[in-house]
């Protein structure tokens, strides 16, 4: 999934909140492998 917005610590991918604790800081445009609402791997 692609990160679309980061605001007040909340990361949104296509309007879905995703926990990014396991991949560190992300920015809009980053691509993540997301499973059950948590990003497991940063793809880009």
């Amino acid at each position, binding site marked *: 999934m692609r990160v679309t917005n980061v605001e007040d610590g909340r990361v949104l991918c296509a309007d879905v*909140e995703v*926990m990014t604790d396991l991949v560190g800081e992300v920015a809009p445009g980053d*691509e993540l492998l997301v499973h*059950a*609402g948590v990003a*497991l791997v940063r793809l880009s």
Partner: protein
Amino acid sequence: MRFVDEFRDAELGRVLAAEIVSTVEPGRHYKLMEVCGGHTHTIYKYGVDDLLPENVELVHGPGCPVCVIPMGRVDDGIAVAHEDGVVFTCFGDMMRVPGSRGTLLEAKAEGADIRMVYSPLDALRIARETPEREVVFFAVGFETTAPSTALTLLRARAEGIRNFTVFCNHVTIVPPLRALLESPDLRLDGFIGPGHVSTVVGARPFEFIPADYDKPIVISGFEPLDLLQAVHMILVQLRDGRCEVENQYKRVVPYDGNPQALRVLAEVFELRPHFEWRGLGFISHSGLRLSDAFASYDAERRFAVPGVRVADPKACQCGEVLKGVIRPWECKVFGTACTPERPIGTCMVSSEGACAAYYNFGRFAREREAV
């Protein structure tokens, strides 16, 4: 789409299929098991097995998290859902898994407040928005999904949310693999290793397969070319007389996994002494429960969970499908009494279940072939 289209190239698929044909030894039968429901889905959706020579057989192991949940745990979940004041939440697939007296979907129709969520974070949001209710999340899945539950519990504790609990049914992948390898029912030549579980645990936990059982395993991605390449890598190992853990999915899977995820899992969960698997029975140290530090978030400690044990329906052969002993269409009720619309067994429920995947993508092709 990046990371997807380049792994669905039909011409490259044909090249890999030809490589596989030139690698196998004529007259030898190869039986390879994939142990991830995502792989099963891809194999049937894209007809990967149609590209393999007849003497290379793919069988499907216990890799679909919904499929391995025994009926008793569904009954337990329904009992909790019927408790006063409870909002019971679960993934969509779980709502259709039959227990001995129906499904969560049927319990919802009878009046229990059962809601489908996409992640435990959704369940936590419901708890935050309805502090007068007890919100329970039915957690299922392997090490891929467990970090999501763990991070949600850490968030619940950090926010001081007290009306949220988890009915934990998370399982681990290594113990059932060892059980399968010890089974006299099954002769396997190699494994296609689970890609997403390995993003968390890495490839290292699978080293016991070549070391103790002399079988190769190749961790694979989820696109058709990933799977064809993984099959080829296994066959090359067998041809060369090697048995190793290899990682075809290097673009995603680090050999040592995700250390942060492993730390979170160790903080929130502990191993149960044993856990029941559908078709495989009780397996030691194969299930997770919440650690004492998270006892107040444990639905099994907060509610009177009956701890039901129920035998599978006699007609259902999910256990044999999950062990790779039979293929989906060899089950007595496949496609007749058991369909995705009215499943008898768990393997017909989830899109990652071997029976549902085969029913949805492969059944009619096989019927044509038979004609």
